[in-house]
Protein backbone atom coordinates (compact mmCIF):
# COMPACT_ATOMS: atom_id res chain seq x y z
CA UNK A 1 0.00 0.00 0.00
CA UNK A 2 1.19 3.46 -0.76
CA UNK A 3 2.62 5.25 2.25
CA UNK A 4 0.51 8.28 3.06
CA UNK A 5 2.18 11.51 4.07
CA UNK A 6 1.99 12.01 7.81
CA UNK A 7 -0.14 14.97 8.77
CA UNK A 8 0.81 16.33 12.17
CA UNK A 9 -0.94 19.69 11.70
CA UNK A 10 -4.32 18.03 11.85
CA UNK A 11 -3.65 14.92 13.93
CA UNK A 12 -7.28 13.81 13.95
CA UNK A 13 -9.45 13.86 10.85
CA UNK A 14 -12.83 12.17 10.84
CA UNK A 15 -14.38 12.09 7.38
CA UNK A 16 -18.06 11.18 7.18
CA UNK A 17 -17.41 8.20 9.43
CA UNK A 18 -20.21 5.83 10.41
CA UNK A 19 -20.22 2.75 12.56
CA UNK A 20 -22.84 0.04 12.89
CA UNK A 21 -22.56 -2.63 15.59
CA UNK A 22 -24.86 -4.93 13.67
CA UNK A 23 -25.76 -4.90 10.05
CA UNK A 24 -29.43 -3.99 10.43
CA UNK A 25 -29.11 -1.84 13.52
CA UNK A 26 -29.24 1.91 13.29
CA UNK A 27 -25.71 3.32 13.17
CA UNK A 28 -24.13 4.24 16.53
CA UNK A 29 -22.05 6.84 14.70
CA UNK A 30 -23.70 8.34 11.67
CA UNK A 31 -21.67 10.36 9.19
CA UNK A 32 -19.54 12.32 11.62
CA UNK A 33 -16.94 14.69 10.21
CA UNK A 34 -14.49 16.70 12.24
CA UNK A 35 -10.95 17.99 11.90
CA UNK A 36 -9.01 18.55 15.07
CA UNK A 37 -6.01 20.82 14.56
CA UNK A 38 -2.82 20.33 16.52
CA UNK A 39 -2.81 21.68 20.06
CA UNK A 40 -6.54 22.19 20.35
CA UNK A 41 -8.78 21.05 23.18
CA UNK A 42 -12.05 19.76 21.80
CA UNK A 43 -14.92 18.59 23.98
CA UNK A 44 -17.35 16.03 22.62
CA UNK A 45 -20.58 16.30 24.56
CA UNK A 46 -23.58 14.02 24.44
CA UNK A 47 -25.97 12.05 26.63
CA UNK A 48 -25.51 8.33 27.25
CA UNK A 49 -26.08 6.44 24.03
CA UNK A 50 -25.40 9.44 21.79
CA UNK A 51 -22.50 7.60 20.16
CA UNK A 52 -19.63 9.44 21.79
CA UNK A 53 -17.89 6.32 23.13
CA UNK A 54 -18.17 4.59 19.77
CA UNK A 55 -16.68 7.66 18.12
CA UNK A 56 -13.78 7.53 20.59
CA UNK A 57 -13.07 3.93 19.66
CA UNK A 58 -13.05 4.84 15.97
CA UNK A 59 -10.34 7.36 16.73
CA UNK A 60 -7.61 4.85 17.46
CA UNK A 61 -8.58 1.88 15.36
CA UNK A 62 -10.25 -0.08 18.17
CA UNK A 63 -13.20 0.01 15.78
CA UNK A 64 -12.96 0.57 12.04
CA UNK A 65 -15.61 2.77 10.41
CA UNK A 66 -18.20 0.85 8.42
CA UNK A 67 -18.42 3.90 6.18
CA UNK A 68 -16.18 6.93 5.69
CA UNK A 69 -12.72 7.07 7.20
CA UNK A 70 -10.66 8.23 10.14
CA UNK A 71 -7.14 9.58 9.77
CA UNK A 72 -4.74 9.76 12.71
CA UNK A 73 -1.80 12.01 11.79
CA UNK A 74 -2.69 11.29 8.20
CA UNK A 75 -2.74 7.52 8.62
CA UNK A 76 -5.97 5.81 7.67
CA UNK A 77 -7.09 3.62 10.60
CA UNK A 78 -8.16 0.98 8.08
CA UNK A 79 -4.50 0.37 7.21
CA UNK A 80 -3.74 -2.77 9.14
CA UNK A 81 0.03 -2.44 9.04
CA UNK A 82 -0.12 0.99 10.69
CA UNK A 83 -2.37 -0.01 13.57
CA UNK A 84 0.31 0.07 16.32
CA UNK A 85 1.62 3.34 14.97
CA UNK A 86 -1.87 4.80 15.01
CA UNK A 87 -2.52 3.70 18.58
CA UNK A 88 0.82 5.10 19.67
CA UNK A 89 -0.09 8.50 18.17
CA UNK A 90 -3.66 8.52 19.45
CA UNK A 91 -3.58 7.50 23.12
CA UNK A 92 -6.78 6.67 24.89
CA UNK A 93 -7.93 6.97 28.51
CA UNK A 94 -11.11 5.14 29.49
CA UNK A 95 -13.90 5.74 31.95
CA UNK A 96 -13.35 3.17 34.67
CA UNK A 97 -10.09 3.86 36.49
CA UNK A 98 -9.89 0.30 37.78
CA UNK A 99 -10.29 -1.45 34.47
CA UNK A 100 -7.40 0.05 32.54
CA UNK A 101 -4.48 -0.40 34.90
CA UNK A 102 -2.68 -3.62 34.05
CA UNK A 103 0.11 -3.93 36.55
CA UNK A 104 0.04 -3.89 40.32
CA UNK A 105 2.78 -1.31 40.63
CA UNK A 106 2.27 2.23 39.32
CA UNK A 107 5.54 2.65 37.43
CA UNK A 108 5.26 -0.78 35.88
CA UNK A 109 1.84 0.11 34.59
CA UNK A 110 3.22 3.25 32.98
CA UNK A 111 5.83 1.01 31.38
CA UNK A 112 3.21 -1.29 29.85
CA UNK A 113 2.73 0.62 26.59
CA UNK A 114 6.47 1.14 26.19
CA UNK A 115 7.13 -2.56 26.68
CA UNK A 116 4.58 -3.31 23.98
CA UNK A 117 6.27 -0.88 21.60
CA UNK A 118 9.63 -2.51 22.26
CA UNK A 119 11.25 0.64 23.65
CA UNK A 120 14.78 -0.15 24.92
CA UNK A 121 15.10 -0.51 28.68
CA UNK A 122 17.28 2.56 29.29
CA UNK A 123 15.08 4.90 27.32
CA UNK A 124 12.03 3.50 29.06
CA UNK A 125 13.15 4.64 32.48
CA UNK A 126 13.53 8.28 31.42
CA UNK A 127 10.17 8.33 29.68
CA UNK A 128 8.40 6.79 32.66
CA UNK A 129 9.92 9.31 35.05
CA UNK A 130 8.92 12.19 32.77
CA UNK A 131 5.38 10.93 32.40
CA UNK A 132 4.93 10.37 36.12
CA UNK A 133 6.22 13.81 36.98
CA UNK A 134 3.97 15.44 34.34
CA UNK A 135 0.92 14.00 36.13
CA UNK A 136 2.43 14.60 39.59
CA UNK A 137 2.56 10.94 40.55
CA UNK A 138 6.31 10.54 41.05
CA UNK A 139 5.88 9.98 44.76
CA UNK A 140 3.43 7.15 44.21
CA UNK A 141 5.59 5.36 41.64
CA UNK A 142 5.96 2.22 43.74
CA UNK A 143 2.37 2.13 45.01
CA UNK A 144 -0.18 -0.54 44.22
CA UNK A 145 -3.08 0.93 42.21
CA UNK A 146 -5.71 -0.16 44.71
CA UNK A 147 -4.12 2.13 47.29
CA UNK A 148 -4.82 5.20 45.12
CA UNK A 149 -7.91 7.40 44.83
CA UNK A 150 -9.96 7.37 41.63
CA UNK A 151 -8.42 10.64 40.43
CA UNK A 152 -4.91 9.35 41.08
CA UNK A 153 -5.65 6.15 39.18
CA UNK A 154 -6.80 8.19 36.20
CA UNK A 155 -3.60 10.21 36.37
CA UNK A 156 -1.64 6.95 36.27
CA UNK A 157 -3.62 5.92 33.20
CA UNK A 158 -2.84 9.30 31.62
CA UNK A 159 0.86 8.82 32.40
CA UNK A 160 0.72 5.41 30.74
CA UNK A 161 -0.54 7.04 27.55
CA UNK A 162 1.76 10.05 27.86
CA UNK A 163 4.89 7.88 28.08
CA UNK A 164 4.10 6.65 24.56
CA UNK A 165 4.52 10.28 23.37
CA UNK A 166 1.16 10.60 21.63
CA UNK A 167 0.05 13.46 19.39
CA UNK A 168 -3.58 13.20 20.44
CA UNK A 169 -5.10 12.09 23.70
CA UNK A 170 -8.67 10.85 23.67
CA UNK A 171 -10.30 10.79 27.08
CA UNK A 172 -13.52 8.81 26.97
CA UNK A 173 -15.54 10.06 29.96
CA UNK A 174 -12.40 9.84 32.05
CA UNK A 175 -14.04 11.79 34.88
CA UNK A 176 -17.50 10.20 34.92
CA UNK A 177 -16.77 7.93 37.87
CA UNK A 178 -14.80 10.41 39.97
CA UNK A 179 -15.79 12.69 42.84
CA UNK A 180 -15.67 16.47 42.27
CA UNK A 181 -12.11 16.89 43.51
CA UNK A 182 -10.86 13.96 41.46
CA UNK A 183 -12.65 15.37 38.44
CA UNK A 184 -11.08 18.79 38.83
CA UNK A 185 -7.70 17.20 39.38
CA UNK A 186 -7.80 15.09 36.21
CA UNK A 187 -9.14 17.96 34.11
CA UNK A 188 -6.40 20.28 35.35
CA UNK A 189 -3.75 17.68 34.58
CA UNK A 190 -4.99 17.28 31.02
CA UNK A 191 -5.30 21.03 30.49
CA UNK A 192 -1.70 21.41 31.58
CA UNK A 193 -0.52 18.71 29.15
CA UNK A 194 -2.45 20.47 26.41
CA UNK A 195 -0.94 23.86 27.17
CA UNK A 196 2.62 22.91 28.04
CA UNK A 197 3.27 19.88 25.86
CA UNK A 198 1.01 20.88 23.00
CA UNK A 199 -0.84 17.57 23.12
CA UNK A 200 -4.10 17.69 21.22
CA UNK A 201 -6.99 16.69 23.48
CA UNK A 202 -10.34 15.18 22.63
CA UNK A 203 -12.32 15.29 25.84
CA UNK A 204 -15.48 13.21 25.80
CA UNK A 205 -17.90 13.99 28.58
CA UNK A 206 -21.45 14.65 29.66
CA UNK A 207 -20.47 17.30 32.17
CA UNK A 208 -21.17 20.65 30.59
CA UNK A 209 -19.01 22.52 33.10
CA UNK A 210 -16.02 20.58 31.72
CA UNK A 211 -17.01 21.14 28.11
CA UNK A 212 -17.30 24.85 28.86
CA UNK A 213 -13.53 24.97 29.35
CA UNK A 214 -12.70 23.58 25.90
CA UNK A 215 -11.70 25.57 22.78
CA UNK A 216 -14.52 23.99 20.91
CA UNK A 217 -17.58 21.90 21.75
CA UNK A 218 -19.05 19.27 19.49
CA UNK A 219 -22.45 18.01 20.61
CA UNK A 220 -23.45 14.54 19.45
CA UNK A 221 -26.98 13.25 19.21
CA UNK A 222 -28.03 9.91 17.74
CA UNK A 223 -24.56 9.41 16.39
CA UNK A 224 -24.47 12.65 14.41
CA UNK A 225 -23.03 16.09 15.08
CA UNK A 226 -25.89 18.25 16.40
CA UNK A 227 -23.91 21.35 17.30
CA UNK A 228 -20.33 22.49 16.77
CA UNK A 229 -18.82 25.73 17.98
CA UNK A 230 -17.07 27.62 20.75
CA UNK A 231 -18.56 26.99 24.23
CA UNK A 232 -20.05 30.46 24.68
CA UNK A 233 -21.90 30.11 21.41
CA UNK A 234 -23.08 26.52 21.95
CA UNK A 235 -24.23 27.04 25.53
CA UNK A 236 -26.20 30.15 24.72
CA UNK A 237 -28.55 27.90 22.73
CA UNK A 238 -30.19 26.77 25.98
CA UNK A 239 -33.33 25.18 24.54
CA UNK A 240 -31.51 23.15 21.91
CA UNK A 241 -29.05 21.83 24.50
CA UNK A 242 -31.85 20.82 26.83
CA UNK A 243 -33.75 19.13 24.04
CA UNK A 244 -30.66 16.97 23.52
CA UNK A 245 -30.89 15.70 27.11
CA UNK A 246 -28.01 17.85 28.31
CA UNK A 247 -27.64 20.69 30.77
CA UNK A 248 -26.35 24.19 30.33
CA UNK A 249 -24.14 25.81 32.97
CA UNK A 250 -26.34 27.37 35.70
CA UNK A 251 -25.09 30.86 34.81
CA UNK A 252 -26.07 30.43 31.14
CA UNK A 253 -29.51 29.40 32.32
CA UNK A 254 -29.75 32.41 34.64
CA UNK A 255 -28.58 34.80 31.92
CA UNK A 256 -31.32 33.53 29.68
CA UNK A 257 -33.99 33.96 32.34
CA UNK A 258 -32.79 37.49 33.10
CA UNK A 259 -32.80 38.35 29.42
CA UNK A 260 -36.38 37.14 29.16
CA UNK A 261 -37.27 39.56 31.94
CA UNK A 262 -35.81 42.40 29.93
CA UNK A 263 -32.29 42.68 31.26
CA UNK A 264 -29.84 43.30 28.47
CA UNK A 265 -27.05 40.81 28.91
CA UNK A 266 -24.69 39.73 26.12
CA UNK A 267 -24.45 36.12 24.95
CA UNK A 268 -21.69 33.83 26.17
CA UNK A 269 -22.04 34.04 29.95
CA UNK A 270 -20.88 30.68 31.35
CA UNK A 271 -19.30 31.26 34.74
CA UNK A 272 -20.03 33.19 37.92
CA UNK A 273 -17.18 35.55 37.07
CA UNK A 274 -18.70 36.28 33.61
CA UNK A 275 -22.04 36.97 35.23
CA UNK A 276 -20.65 39.36 37.84
CA UNK A 277 -18.73 41.25 35.18
CA UNK A 278 -21.76 41.68 32.93
CA UNK A 279 -24.12 42.54 35.77
CA UNK A 280 -21.76 45.31 36.84
CA UNK A 281 -22.28 46.89 33.42
CA UNK A 282 -26.05 46.54 33.62
CA UNK A 283 -27.11 46.99 37.21
CA UNK A 284 -27.35 50.04 39.30
CA UNK A 285 -25.03 49.82 42.26
CA UNK A 286 -27.08 51.27 45.08
CA UNK A 287 -24.98 52.17 48.02
Amino acid at each position, binding site marked *: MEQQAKNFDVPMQVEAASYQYEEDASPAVDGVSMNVPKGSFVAVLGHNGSGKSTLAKLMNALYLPTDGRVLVCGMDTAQEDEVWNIRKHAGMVFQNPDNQIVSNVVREDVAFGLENLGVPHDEMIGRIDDALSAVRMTEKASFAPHMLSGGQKQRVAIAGVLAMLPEVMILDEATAMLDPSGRKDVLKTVQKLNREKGITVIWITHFMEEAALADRVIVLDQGAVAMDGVPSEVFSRVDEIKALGLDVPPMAQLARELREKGLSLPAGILTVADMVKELKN*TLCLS*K
Partner: protein
Amino acid sequence: MPIKVEHLSHTYMQGSPFSATALHDVNITIEDGELIGLLGHTGSGKTTLVQHLNGLVKPTEGKVFVDGIDTSEKGVQLLEVRKKVGLVFQYPEYQLFEESVIKDIAFGPKNMGLSAEEIDERVRFAMNQVGISYEDIGERSPFELSGGQMRRVAIAGVLAMRPKVLILDEPTAGLDPAGRRSILSMIRDLHAAGDLTVVMVSHSMDDIASLATRLIVMSKGELVMSGTPREIFKQQETLRSIGLGVPQAAELNHALLAEGYDLPDDLYTLGEVRDAILRLAGKDVSEC
Protein backbone atom coordinates in the same frame (compact mmCIF):
# COMPACT_ATOMS: atom_id res chain seq x y z
CA MET B 1 -39.46 6.42 63.73
CA PRO B 2 -36.41 8.44 64.60
CA ILE B 3 -32.81 7.28 64.29
CA LYS B 4 -30.52 8.41 67.07
CA VAL B 5 -26.76 8.34 66.77
CA GLU B 6 -24.98 8.98 70.05
CA HIS B 7 -21.24 9.55 70.43
CA LEU B 8 -20.57 7.21 67.54
CA SER B 9 -16.95 6.42 66.73
CA HIS B 10 -15.68 3.80 64.36
CA THR B 11 -12.16 2.53 63.81
CA TYR B 12 -11.44 0.02 61.06
CA MET B 13 -9.03 -2.81 61.88
CA GLN B 14 -8.72 -1.69 65.48
CA GLY B 15 -5.56 -2.85 67.20
CA SER B 16 -3.72 -3.61 63.95
CA PRO B 17 -1.08 -1.47 62.28
CA PHE B 18 -3.69 -0.65 59.58
CA SER B 19 -6.18 0.84 62.03
CA ALA B 20 -7.93 3.93 60.71
CA THR B 21 -10.47 6.13 62.40
CA ALA B 22 -13.44 6.59 60.07
CA LEU B 23 -15.82 8.30 62.49
CA HIS B 24 -15.23 10.30 65.62
CA ASP B 25 -17.89 11.19 68.20
CA VAL B 26 -20.80 11.72 65.80
CA ASN B 27 -24.19 12.74 67.22
CA ILE B 28 -27.32 13.11 65.08
CA THR B 29 -31.02 12.53 65.31
CA ILE B 30 -32.95 11.86 62.13
CA GLU B 31 -36.62 12.74 62.53
CA ASP B 32 -39.58 11.38 60.59
CA GLY B 33 -40.22 12.96 57.22
CA GLU B 34 -36.87 14.67 56.80
CA LEU B 35 -34.98 14.66 53.51
CA ILE B 36 -31.41 14.90 54.61
CA GLY B 37 -28.51 15.66 52.35
CA LEU B 38 -25.30 14.15 53.70
CA LEU B 39 -22.34 16.02 52.27
CA GLY B 40 -18.64 15.45 52.49
CA HIS B 41 -15.46 14.74 50.64
CA THR B 42 -14.46 11.20 49.70
CA GLY B 43 -13.09 9.68 52.89
CA SER B 44 -15.05 12.02 55.17
CA GLY B 45 -16.86 9.09 56.76
CA LYS B 46 -20.26 9.50 55.01
CA THR B 47 -20.39 5.93 53.76
CA THR B 48 -19.27 4.46 57.07
CA LEU B 49 -21.90 6.54 58.83
CA VAL B 50 -24.80 5.38 56.67
CA GLN B 51 -23.68 1.76 57.00
CA HIS B 52 -24.10 2.15 60.75
CA LEU B 53 -27.69 3.26 60.33
CA ASN B 54 -28.86 -0.22 59.33
CA GLY B 55 -26.43 -2.26 61.37
CA LEU B 56 -24.10 -3.31 58.53
CA VAL B 57 -21.25 -1.86 60.51
CA LYS B 58 -21.17 -1.82 64.30
CA PRO B 59 -19.96 1.10 66.38
CA THR B 60 -16.53 0.82 67.97
CA GLU B 61 -17.81 3.30 70.52
CA GLY B 62 -21.15 4.94 71.12
CA LYS B 63 -24.59 3.76 70.09
CA VAL B 64 -27.02 3.80 67.20
CA PHE B 65 -30.73 3.48 67.96
CA VAL B 66 -33.14 2.68 65.16
CA ASP B 67 -36.71 3.05 66.34
CA GLY B 68 -35.46 2.37 69.84
CA ILE B 69 -33.44 -0.74 68.88
CA ASP B 70 -29.81 -0.58 69.88
CA THR B 71 -27.98 -2.01 66.85
CA SER B 72 -24.93 -3.07 68.82
CA GLU B 73 -26.80 -4.98 71.51
CA LYS B 74 -26.06 -8.71 71.69
CA GLY B 75 -28.59 -10.89 69.88
CA VAL B 76 -30.29 -7.93 68.19
CA GLN B 77 -32.50 -8.85 65.22
CA LEU B 78 -30.62 -7.08 62.44
CA LEU B 79 -33.26 -8.09 59.89
CA GLU B 80 -35.72 -5.95 61.89
CA VAL B 81 -33.36 -2.99 61.57
CA ARG B 82 -32.81 -3.59 57.86
CA LYS B 83 -36.56 -3.76 57.26
CA LYS B 84 -36.90 -0.33 58.76
CA VAL B 85 -33.85 1.27 57.16
CA GLY B 86 -33.30 0.56 53.46
CA LEU B 87 -29.83 1.26 52.11
CA VAL B 88 -29.17 1.80 48.41
CA PHE B 89 -25.46 1.53 47.72
CA GLN B 90 -23.43 3.53 45.24
CA TYR B 91 -23.81 2.03 41.74
CA PRO B 92 -26.56 -0.27 43.08
CA GLU B 93 -27.09 -1.80 39.62
CA TYR B 94 -23.93 -3.85 40.23
CA GLN B 95 -25.75 -5.93 42.84
CA LEU B 96 -28.50 -7.22 40.52
CA PHE B 97 -28.30 -10.97 40.10
CA GLU B 98 -31.66 -12.57 39.31
CA GLU B 99 -32.85 -13.76 35.92
CA SER B 100 -35.78 -11.36 35.86
CA VAL B 101 -36.47 -7.88 37.15
CA ILE B 102 -39.42 -9.12 39.21
CA LYS B 103 -37.37 -11.85 40.90
CA ASP B 104 -34.61 -9.44 41.71
CA ILE B 105 -36.93 -6.94 43.33
CA ALA B 106 -38.56 -9.82 45.23
CA PHE B 107 -35.24 -10.78 46.84
CA GLY B 108 -35.61 -8.47 49.84
CA PRO B 109 -39.28 -9.26 50.59
CA LYS B 110 -38.47 -12.96 50.23
CA ASN B 111 -35.72 -12.68 52.81
CA MET B 112 -38.31 -11.13 55.10
CA GLY B 113 -40.32 -14.34 54.83
CA LEU B 114 -43.46 -12.82 53.30
CA SER B 115 -46.19 -14.72 51.44
CA ALA B 116 -46.12 -14.99 47.66
CA GLU B 117 -49.10 -12.65 47.26
CA GLU B 118 -47.60 -10.08 49.59
CA ILE B 119 -44.30 -10.27 47.71
CA ASP B 120 -45.98 -9.79 44.34
CA GLU B 121 -48.00 -6.90 45.67
CA ARG B 122 -44.87 -5.23 46.99
CA VAL B 123 -42.91 -5.78 43.78
CA ARG B 124 -45.67 -4.14 41.76
CA PHE B 125 -45.87 -1.25 44.18
CA ALA B 126 -42.10 -0.69 44.26
CA MET B 127 -41.86 -0.80 40.46
CA ASN B 128 -44.58 1.77 40.27
CA GLN B 129 -42.73 3.94 42.78
CA VAL B 130 -39.58 4.03 40.68
CA GLY B 131 -41.51 4.42 37.44
CA ILE B 132 -40.83 1.16 35.61
CA SER B 133 -43.55 -0.94 34.10
CA TYR B 134 -44.30 -4.32 35.68
CA GLU B 135 -45.88 -5.58 32.46
CA ASP B 136 -43.23 -4.40 29.98
CA ILE B 137 -40.01 -4.87 31.88
CA GLY B 138 -40.87 -7.22 34.74
CA GLU B 139 -40.00 -10.46 32.97
CA ARG B 140 -36.87 -9.15 31.31
CA SER B 141 -33.37 -9.87 32.52
CA PRO B 142 -32.07 -6.92 34.54
CA PHE B 143 -28.80 -7.17 32.63
CA GLU B 144 -30.50 -6.20 29.34
CA LEU B 145 -31.70 -2.84 30.64
CA SER B 146 -30.11 0.56 30.22
CA GLY B 147 -27.94 1.93 33.04
CA GLY B 148 -30.65 4.26 34.30
CA GLN B 149 -33.31 1.53 34.29
CA MET B 150 -30.98 -0.88 36.10
CA ARG B 151 -30.49 1.69 38.80
CA ARG B 152 -34.24 2.09 39.21
CA VAL B 153 -34.67 -1.67 39.51
CA ALA B 154 -32.00 -1.74 42.21
CA ILE B 155 -33.73 1.05 44.12
CA ALA B 156 -37.06 -0.77 43.76
CA GLY B 157 -35.38 -3.83 45.31
CA VAL B 158 -34.82 -1.83 48.48
CA LEU B 159 -38.19 -0.02 48.40
CA ALA B 160 -39.97 -3.39 48.19
CA MET B 161 -38.89 -4.01 51.77
CA ARG B 162 -41.08 -1.00 52.70
CA PRO B 163 -38.48 0.79 54.78
CA LYS B 164 -39.40 3.78 56.89
CA VAL B 165 -36.06 5.37 56.13
CA LEU B 166 -34.45 5.20 52.69
CA ILE B 167 -30.75 5.93 52.46
CA LEU B 168 -29.20 6.50 49.04
CA ASP B 169 -25.42 6.63 48.64
CA GLU B 170 -24.62 8.84 45.62
CA PRO B 171 -27.75 7.91 43.70
CA THR B 172 -26.79 9.97 40.63
CA ALA B 173 -23.16 8.85 40.29
CA GLY B 174 -22.17 8.12 36.70
CA LEU B 175 -25.48 9.22 35.14
CA ASP B 176 -25.80 11.78 32.38
CA PRO B 177 -27.75 15.01 32.99
CA ALA B 178 -31.09 13.59 31.88
CA GLY B 179 -30.59 10.46 33.99
CA ARG B 180 -29.56 12.59 36.93
CA ARG B 181 -32.59 14.83 36.65
CA SER B 182 -34.99 11.92 36.47
CA ILE B 183 -33.52 10.09 39.49
CA LEU B 184 -33.61 13.31 41.50
CA SER B 185 -37.22 13.98 40.65
CA MET B 186 -38.03 10.37 41.52
CA ILE B 187 -36.47 10.88 44.96
CA ARG B 188 -38.43 14.10 45.38
CA ASP B 189 -41.67 12.27 44.52
CA LEU B 190 -40.91 9.38 46.88
CA HIS B 191 -40.41 11.82 49.71
CA ALA B 192 -43.40 13.97 48.80
CA ALA B 193 -45.68 10.93 48.86
CA GLY B 194 -45.16 10.99 52.62
CA ASP B 195 -44.23 8.23 55.07
CA LEU B 196 -40.66 8.04 53.90
CA THR B 197 -37.66 9.65 55.53
CA VAL B 198 -34.81 10.05 53.03
CA VAL B 199 -31.09 10.40 53.58
CA MET B 200 -29.14 11.14 50.42
CA VAL B 201 -25.37 11.05 50.32
CA SER B 202 -23.96 13.29 47.64
CA HIS B 203 -21.10 15.50 46.71
CA SER B 204 -23.06 17.43 44.16
CA MET B 205 -24.14 20.68 45.77
CA ASP B 206 -26.51 21.55 42.97
CA ASP B 207 -28.28 18.19 43.26
CA ILE B 208 -28.77 18.51 46.95
CA ALA B 209 -29.63 22.21 47.14
CA SER B 210 -32.91 21.70 45.33
CA LEU B 211 -34.02 18.69 47.39
CA ALA B 212 -32.93 18.58 50.99
CA THR B 213 -34.80 19.89 54.02
CA ARG B 214 -31.64 19.59 56.09
CA LEU B 215 -27.98 19.23 55.32
CA ILE B 216 -25.38 17.41 57.37
CA VAL B 217 -21.75 18.07 56.52
CA MET B 218 -18.99 15.62 57.42
CA SER B 219 -15.27 16.15 57.31
CA LYS B 220 -12.48 13.82 58.43
CA GLY B 221 -14.86 11.55 60.29
CA GLU B 222 -16.56 14.32 62.21
CA LEU B 223 -19.89 16.04 61.86
CA VAL B 224 -19.02 19.67 61.22
CA MET B 225 -22.32 21.30 60.27
CA SER B 226 -26.01 20.57 60.39
CA GLY B 227 -28.82 22.87 59.33
CA THR B 228 -31.16 23.95 56.56
CA PRO B 229 -29.58 24.44 53.13
CA ARG B 230 -30.01 28.18 53.62
CA GLU B 231 -28.02 28.14 56.86
CA ILE B 232 -25.33 25.87 55.47
CA PHE B 233 -24.74 27.51 52.08
CA LYS B 234 -24.35 30.87 53.79
CA GLN B 235 -21.12 29.60 55.30
CA GLN B 236 -19.15 29.43 52.09
CA GLU B 237 -15.75 29.88 53.70
CA THR B 238 -16.21 26.94 56.07
CA LEU B 239 -17.44 24.74 53.24
CA ARG B 240 -14.48 25.69 51.06
CA SER B 241 -12.02 25.05 53.87
CA ILE B 242 -13.14 21.42 53.99
CA GLY B 243 -12.92 21.08 50.23
CA LEU B 244 -16.60 21.49 49.35
CA GLY B 245 -18.19 24.03 47.08
CA VAL B 246 -21.57 25.74 47.14
CA PRO B 247 -24.26 25.89 44.45
CA GLN B 248 -23.35 28.43 41.79
CA ALA B 249 -26.38 30.52 42.73
CA ALA B 250 -25.01 30.94 46.26
CA GLU B 251 -21.59 31.72 44.84
CA LEU B 252 -23.04 34.46 42.63
CA ASN B 253 -24.99 35.80 45.59
CA HIS B 254 -21.77 36.19 47.57
CA ALA B 255 -19.83 37.64 44.66
CA LEU B 256 -22.48 40.31 44.12
CA LEU B 257 -22.53 41.12 47.85
CA ALA B 258 -18.78 41.53 47.73
CA GLU B 259 -19.22 43.99 44.85
CA GLY B 260 -21.42 46.07 47.13
CA TYR B 261 -24.86 45.21 45.78
CA ASP B 262 -27.76 45.27 48.15
CA LEU B 263 -28.95 41.65 48.35
CA PRO B 264 -29.90 39.19 51.07
CA ASP B 265 -26.92 37.05 52.07
CA ASP B 266 -28.52 33.61 52.09
CA LEU B 267 -29.83 32.92 48.57
CA TYR B 268 -28.95 29.55 47.07
CA THR B 269 -31.36 28.73 44.24
CA LEU B 270 -31.22 30.21 40.75
CA GLY B 271 -34.80 31.45 41.05
CA GLU B 272 -34.10 33.39 44.23
CA VAL B 273 -31.00 35.01 42.82
CA ARG B 274 -32.83 35.87 39.59
CA ASP B 275 -35.61 37.60 41.49
CA ALA B 276 -33.15 39.50 43.66
CA ILE B 277 -31.25 40.71 40.59
CA LEU B 278 -34.48 41.75 38.94
CA ARG B 279 -35.41 43.75 42.03
CA LEU B 280 -32.06 45.54 41.76
CA ALA B 281 -32.60 46.12 38.07
CA GLY B 282 -36.00 47.58 38.75
CA LYS B 283 -34.49 50.43 40.74
CA ASP B 284 -34.38 53.76 39.11
CA VAL B 285 -31.28 53.97 37.00
CA SER B 286 -31.08 57.73 37.40
CA GLU B 287 -30.07 57.22 41.03
CA CYS B 288 -26.77 55.73 39.95
